[in-house]
């Protein structure tokens, strides 16, 4: 355990946490509007593929991220229509998205590159320090400057989210939709509208989280590259107790666990690395078991909203 190991670990944790932050915020916005979305894995997959393709074609990773977000919004509109308008079971439909979107991503990849083609690679997004031509050679500079714009965006979004839900009128209304849609409706809040907006935000953030994987993290697309992050995001939202700050801490913690297990995979310690990977999931189950149903997130979550219900 020397300083280099630790500093590398911290830098890796930040890297690992970033896609989780995007996905967890996506889940947070969805759940705050009363929509439990287990389909982020799928949205991230399609976002990651589109991000990859567009940045390959246009040469601009930034454009890739935007495109990834846009396509994920489109796919999430299927979820929105099915769960908000048709009142389909949210978990079931999230699952359907999880089967559909990765299949679509894999299909587009095969069609575009043909079967059995060699691995195509793209240029990754520049970090701030390389854009500014600063030589980031010490830990602090690396931590603060040697990051892609996506990392700064992620933290900005967390701050924005915390302010939005706590300080703004619109954020308060948004939360009311997830807590008690009927009460929100009696106060003139457009419940259905907020839910659709939630799906747009959720799709955009999940798509960005996915695109991060192919534009900032790894320089290529492979099927299954989301690797369970969609579900870790779900865990992070529960573990972070449905707040922006809490979600950030949960993501950093889970990112740290992930960074640690990769280090352990390379080195040979006694403990199998998978035990560290399990932490997010086990932590979530334990948290849920301990807090009980009353405090388990927005109360309107998972339930469809019918306007003229008798």
């Amino acid at each position, binding site marked *: 355990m020397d300083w280099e190991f630790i500093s590398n670990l911290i830098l890796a944790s930040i890297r690992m946490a970033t896609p989780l932050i995007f996905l967890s915020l996506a889940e947070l916005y969805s759940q705050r509007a009363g929509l*439990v979305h*287990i389909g982020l894995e799928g949205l991230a997959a399609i976002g990651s593929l589109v991000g990859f393709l567009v940045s390959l074609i246009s040469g601009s990773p930034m454009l890739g991220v935007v495109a990834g977000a846009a396509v994920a919004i489109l796919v999430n509109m*299927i979820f929105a*229509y*099915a769960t908000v308008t*048709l*009142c*389909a*079971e949210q*978990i*079931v*439909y999230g*699952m*359907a*998205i*999880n*089967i*559909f979107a990765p*299949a*679509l991503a*894999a*299909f587009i990849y*095969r*069609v575009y590159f043909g*079967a059995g083609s060699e691995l195509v690679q793209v240029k990754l997004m520049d970090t701030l320090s390389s854009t500014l031509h600063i030589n980031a050679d010490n830990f602090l500079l690396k931590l603060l400057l040697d990051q892609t714009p996506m990392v700064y965006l992620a933290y900005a979004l967390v701050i924005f989210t915390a302010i939005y839900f706590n300080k703004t009128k619109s954020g308060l209304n948004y939360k009311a939709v997830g807590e008690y849609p009927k009460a929100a409706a009696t106060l003139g809040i457009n419940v259905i509208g907020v839910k659709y907006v939630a799906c747009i935000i959720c799709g955009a953030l999940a798509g960005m989280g996915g695109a991060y994987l192919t534009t900032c993290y790894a320089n290529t697309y492979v099927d299954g590259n989301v690797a*369970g992050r969609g*579900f870790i995001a*779900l*865990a992070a939202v*529960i573990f972070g107790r449905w707040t922006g700050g809490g979600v950030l801490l949960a993501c950093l913690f889970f990112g740290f666990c992930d960074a640690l297990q990769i280090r352990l995979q390379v080195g040979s310690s006694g403990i*199998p690395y*998978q*035990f560290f*990977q*399990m932490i997010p*999931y*086990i932590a*979530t*189950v334990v948290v*849920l*078991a301990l807090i*009980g*149903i009353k405090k*388990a997130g927005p109360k309107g979550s*998972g339930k469809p909203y*019918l306007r003229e219900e008798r």
Partner: protein
Amino acid sequence: MKNSNKLISVLVPIISVLLAFAIGCVIMAVLGANPATALQSLWIGAFGNTRNLGTTLARATPLIFTSLCACFAYRCGVFNLGGEGQFIIGSVACCYVATQSGIEGFPGILLCLIVGALAGGVWALIPGLLKVYRGQNEMIISIMLNYVATLFMGVVYTNWLREGNVPQTASVPDATKLSRIFGLRTTSAFLIALVVGLLIYYFLFYTSKGFQMRAVGLNMTAAEFNGFAVKRYVLFSFVVSGLIAGLGGSAELLGTQYRLINGFAAGYGFDGVAMALIAQLHPLATILVAIFFAALRVGSTTMQAATGVPTSVSDIIQALVIVFTVAGLAMVKLPQIKAVMDRMFAKKEAA
């Protein structure tokens, strides 16, 4: 009325399948293939000869188990999304017994299957208990436990039972492998799946307890008012559904895979839930749906070889079937649409 409901529940998946295939055909045509030829080769690839049929049935077997697992719990009104985890834990336990106990042959097989099933049942007990005693959402918990199970299997094949340099376990002894049947490329695992399906069908529709469990699943409040032990049924359904998945994991290990390796059972859990929903929770229909999906998967390889249509088109078709069916089933339950349909059928029945 009853007939109209049955008709709708059959029509929705059929229309969904047709729609999905129609979209699939458009995609094939756009890719420059002749959809008719492609579909024909898909059919041949899946059922064209005994060899392909055997492969299809072998592919269908684990799916049958996981979808029966989902089907059983859902019949009692609880959503077990943890079929994959229970399947994996079952296969891990089975693998342990098969490779470590030294008991081989038929007694070994029997022991392996029982231990695997029990392990799955115990794994399913966790979400069941949290649901009944803590009121927690069984779906989220069982999803989380899927990942725990997958990672635990990782520990087993990379560490504890690792054989050699490759991260995988040793193969189960030949004497403990399930035998092939009818000279097909499928093993008695398929027969076990069929028997389990029939047993569940019998339990649900021919026994008093099964009847009561369905009543609990359809209306928990009324079931409680009528004196049924609702909590006990919920726990029971979780455990049995875990047993089914665990048995499936064991059968898959002893019949097809022989060893634990990265990617074992990946996706089977959610596939199973989707199939159970498409089959409208009917255990026998579940088996057919699982075979249908397996056929799409197996046949797509032949299709790719014959027409150049990538196998992922088949994945798209499968996904669309799920997307359409689930949306369709929700749609027919909407009050407005239901009213329209009731009127439609009322007229027909009156005529």
